[in-house]
Each structure stands twice: as C-alpha cells, then as structure tokens.
C-alpha cells in the first residue's frame, strides 16, 4: 500500500515538475508547482516526517505559491514567448538543454564507471529516529547545526540586499560616476558610461 502510494506520488511529482517547464502560461506553471509541492509533502508523510510535511504545505504551498500567484496576476503575465519578445533577452533554451543533458550524461558516465549490478541499498538515514519530534528538531537546530543556521540567516540577508540593490530605482540626477577614487588621481573624466 505504502509502496504504491509512494510510486503514485513520485509519478505525480515528476509529472507536475515537467508541467512547470512545459506550460507556456506562467499561471499553469505555478499551479503545476503547487501540485508538485503537494505530492512531495505526501512523500514526506509516507516517510514519517509529519512536521516536514505540514511545514512544506504551510510555507511553500500556503505562503510562497500565493505570493507567486499574486505577482503573476498583478503583472498580468501572458504567454511566455510574449514576455521573451518584450524583454528582448534571449535566454538560450538550447544552451540550457545542453547543460541539463550534460548533467544527465555525466550521471550515466558515473554509472558506467561504477561497473555493474544494482543491489538494493540499505540506507543509513532510515536508522535515524526521533528526528520528527519538534523538540528534537529544535535542539539539533540550535546546538549541532547552529553554525549553518546562522549562515543561512546571513544568506537570506544577502539575498534580500541583492534583490533590493537590483530592483531599486536610481534616483534622478544622481551622477553615474565621479571618477577615480584616489585623491592623487585628478584627471579629466570621460563622460561615457555603461549605464
């Protein structure tokens, strides 16, 4: 029963994942992503991680996806070809496909270099128990994994600043550059700018 459910959910997740890439309307992409999140949280439940499953639903499906939907609705985004034409930036899908395929081929090479035979893997992580209790999770997070926890906070801060730096408008009348930074370099400036 659990095995059948696992395969059903996996196929669902993969299909939804493919849908995210294939769909031409951004709205359908988002809805497919939502489906993928639901399937994933189902898999977490099967593995016995209730807390993760609920968090997945609350945070991703609940909060983040709604945000995505809002943005898409507000910006009134239509067909993605239209978007590509308007923005004028051609992100070469072919290059990306080549890169993705290379990763796949790379994995295949890995298989070939390893030789023969697939034996069922007894995973070591199945032996870890008690990870789902919230208390255990919290204790681990603030003792053993404190440093990565702090590093993650730095990561979030950095991402936030980066996004703001890119998104904020340049104030009108702000000079693009004022020349070399050292007091002893007082040369005439060229007026050209890359901006």
């Amino acid at each position, binding site marked *: 029963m659990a095995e059948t459910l696992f395969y059903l959910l996996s196929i669902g997740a993969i299909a939804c994942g493919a849908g995210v890439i294939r769909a031409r309307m951004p709205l359908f992409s988002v809805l497919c992503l939502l489906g993928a999140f639901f399937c994933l949280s189902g898999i977490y439940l099967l593995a016995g991680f209730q807390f993760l499953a609920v968090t997945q639903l609350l945070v991703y499906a609940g909060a983040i996806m709604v945000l995505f939907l809002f943005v898409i609705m507000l910006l009134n985004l239509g067909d993605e070809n239209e978007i590509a034409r308007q923005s004028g930036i051609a992100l070469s899908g072919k290059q990306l496909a080549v890169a993705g395929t290379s990763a796949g081929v*790379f994995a295949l090479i890995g298989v070939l*270099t*390893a030789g023969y035979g697939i034996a069922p893997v007894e*995973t070591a992580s199945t032996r870890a128990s008690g990870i789902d209790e919230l208390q255990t999770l919290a204790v681990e997070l603030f003792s053993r994994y404190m440093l990565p926890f702090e590093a993650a906070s730095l990561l979030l801060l950095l991402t936030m*600043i980066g996004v703001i730096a*890119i998104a904020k408008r340049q104030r009108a009348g702000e000079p693009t550059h004022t*020349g070399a*930074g050292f007091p002893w370099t007082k040369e005439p400036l060229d007026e050209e700018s890359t901006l």
Partner: protein
Amino acid sequence: MNAYIEQMGLIAPELVLTALSLFVLTWDLLKKGRNSDHIGYATLVGLAVTGWLLLQQWGMLGDKGTQTAFGMVTIDRFGTFFKLFTVGSMAVVTLFVMLDKNERKHGIGEYYFLLIGASIGAFFMVSTNNLLLLMLGLELLSLASYSLAGFHKGSKRSAEAALKYIVFGGLSAGVMLYGISLLYGLTGTLDLGLMGHAPEGSGAVSLATQFDASPIPVAIAVVLVLAGFAYKVSVVPFHFWTPDVYEGAPTPVTTFLAVGSKAAGFAALLRFVGALFLTDGVDASIVAYGDRIGFLLAILAAITMTLGNLSALRQGSLKRMLAYSSIAHAGYVLMGAASMTSEGFAAAMFYLAAYYCMNLGAFGFLIYFEGVTGKDDIDSLKGMGWRHPVVAWSMVVFLVALTGLPPTVGFYGKLILFYAAIDAGLAWLVIIAAINSVISLFYYFRVAKSMFLTEPVPQVPMRQHGLAGILCVLAVVTVLAGLGAFKDPLRGWADEGPASLEIYATDAGSR
C-alpha cells in the same frame, strides 16, 4: 563556555568579515548615498584585519595541527591557504571598484556588502568538511555573484548576464543538492571525513561499504556533486554561462568571478575528492574507483582546455577572450585534481596561486583599458604600448605568465602541474596541455601585437595612476613569484595543503 569562546576564536576571520559587511551596509545608509570611497577604505581595513588573523591562524596551525570549530568548520592549512588568497584578491578587487571609471561612486555600499558576503561564502566553502555548510557557502557565493553580475541596472548585457547566471546556477545547485542528498541517504552523514572512513559507533556507513554493496547509486551521487563543482569552475560541458556572464557583469565583478569564485570552487572540489578517495584510512575498493573518477576528470580537463583555447582564438573582445582563457585555465588546474595524488593537489594549489596574480593583473588591465577607451575589443588596443607604456608592459608580463613562459610564476606553475600529471601516468594529458599552451600563445600574442606593433589610433590622452600602480605591483609579483627566492616558500605553502588534508603521498610505482 571557554570552549565556546575558543571555537569562536577559530572562526574569527569569518566573524570579522561578517561584522565588516554589516558595518559597510549600515554606514552607507547613514551617509545617505554620498561618496562611497570611505566605504572602500573601510573594506580595505577590514580585509587587512582578516588577513592578519589568517596569518596568525597559519602560524597556530603549525603548532597545533588541524582544528575543528562547531563540529563543522575545519581549520587547516589547505583552507587557510585559499582564504589568504581570497582576502588578497578581494582587496585588489575593492581597489578596482574604487578606481574603475565606469563604476558609480555614490550609494554603492551594497556593492561592497555583496562582495564581502561572497568572500564569506568562499571562506565557508574552502574550510568545511560538512556538505551542508559547503552548500550554504556555495549559495552565499553564488547569490552574491548573481546580484553583482546584474549591478549595472541600465545595461542590457548586465541584466542578461545576471539572468543567465541565475538560471544556470540554480540548475547546477539543484543537481549538486540531489547528489548530496543521495550521499547523505547512503552514508547517513554529511561529514566528508566520515564518508571516507567511518569508525565503529559513529552511526555512519562509509562510502566504500556502500560502494561494495551497490556501486551505481554511489557513482551517480559522486558524479552529480562533481557536476555541481564543474559548473562553479566552468569546466566544459557546464561552461556555457561563462563568456556571457563575464562579458555582461561589471568588470571588477568579472575579476572576482574569474579569480576568487573559481579558486573557491576548485578548493571545495579538491577537498571533496581528497576526502572521499585519497585520505588515509579509506578502503581499497573506493580508491580504485577514485582512479576512474580521476580518469573522468582527466578527460574533462583535456576537453576543457582545448575548447577554451580554441574559442579564445576567435574572440574580438578582450573581455570574452579572457573569459575563454579562464575556462582553459580551469582545464589546466583540473589536471592537478585528475592526477589524484598529493603532488597533483599541491601543484593545482600552486597553479591557482599563480592564477590569482596573473588574472587579477589581466583583468586590472582590462579595467584600465575600458576606462581609457570605453571599449573592450582588441582592435581598440592599437597603440596602447606607446601611450601607456607602464600599463602595457605590465600586461605583457601577465600575458607571458598566462601563456606559461619563463621567468614568470605561470611557467613554474605549469611545470609542476605537468610533472605531477606525468607521475600519475597521464602523459597523454600533458601532451595535450603542452599543445594547448602553444595555441594560447597565438591569442595572447595578438593582444601584445595590437598594443605595440600597430599604428596608434588617435585617442584622448588620459592616465589613471592608481590603477597603473596596482598593475605594476602585480606584474612585479608575477615575475618574482616565479623566481627562486619567492617560488620555493610558495611551493612549501602549497605542499602543506594536501598534507593538512591527510592525503597520502603516493609514489608512481604503486599505482
């Protein structure tokens, strides 16, 4: 409590950088976007403090050996070597930002913040055996790089660079995370040391045990993680982003991407491969598999250097040419990793040190040149040699070093790389690399020819003494580091690296 403070002391360089980044950000806000040069100076001071702390640490490691902080950060000479060079290149990049004429000088505190954030990421990447922290460091570095690549908001090329970088980077991070999650599932630990050799009662299964039971999942996991690293250091099947991103990003950022980011990626790659396959105590079966991974890396190295050099031949833009040249150099460094010996690793570290000097110089020249002409194509270089002799001659030194000719550090770096590869039985790879060096001579020489052997085009005479001074110093370093008195200590430092990773020194006969 005391133990806690002691551990904080071990990660003091990281803490100083974090404090510096927050200080820079707040100060810029308080100054309400007036001249940002003060922030540049503050950054330099902070980096100097970090560098001093690292030097103290280097000395301390000689007495006490490898230390671990918070069970995750491994403080060893391998990591400290790369951290010192990261700080050095960061300082040079900061000077470039301050001196670049194409850069805004107001309200760019975020620029410095993101650069410092990227180097914190690099610090974590080079000094951890824990895959979780490694991934966080990698993401810190990557996310800062994405934002920096798109920092010139008005420029379409810059926006394109940021978009391409984030899409490719996201894909590679996903691939790598998939590999890491497989490794965790197989071994039950995120610690590379335990993966290589799991003692009784550690609750982990060593990779070798899993490899004996079922080679295929192990192979897929290892190769997927390697693919993630390959993206970061732009090794060939995963190099597509490099020329576009390097071209579109602001040139100081390109410098950081080509130098700091790439070296950090290589450091993490070497540590990963070393811990899994070459450390004392790993089983024979996985060592044999490591040799096959080495062969795979050797093939990638051959393809990377050939493709990078052949593409560089055709470039009209100096920036794109340097981008392809950096791909080719990734191939050379990969030779060291592919040799799967401690000599090979030490050679790769030495070459990366050389690469820091010569590429910082080459990109610094590019910034100077862009500041003077506003263009970046090789044809506009005409007559640079006569109008700006000091800078042009410095560039010649960097070009000679990049080609790998004596008396520069580039020559000696290549020499020990070739020796290490021959010792590891990769003579065919050395032949390919030698042919590639000859090919690279053509396009590097084209730049020199353009500067000296052609009629000057009329241009506004303009000098940037600050930049010229930095380039001079870098050129002198590039030459001196290749000469006896300075090359031997550097060689010694590079040799300390694999030793501190406890990678056994193999002799050629036993393999």
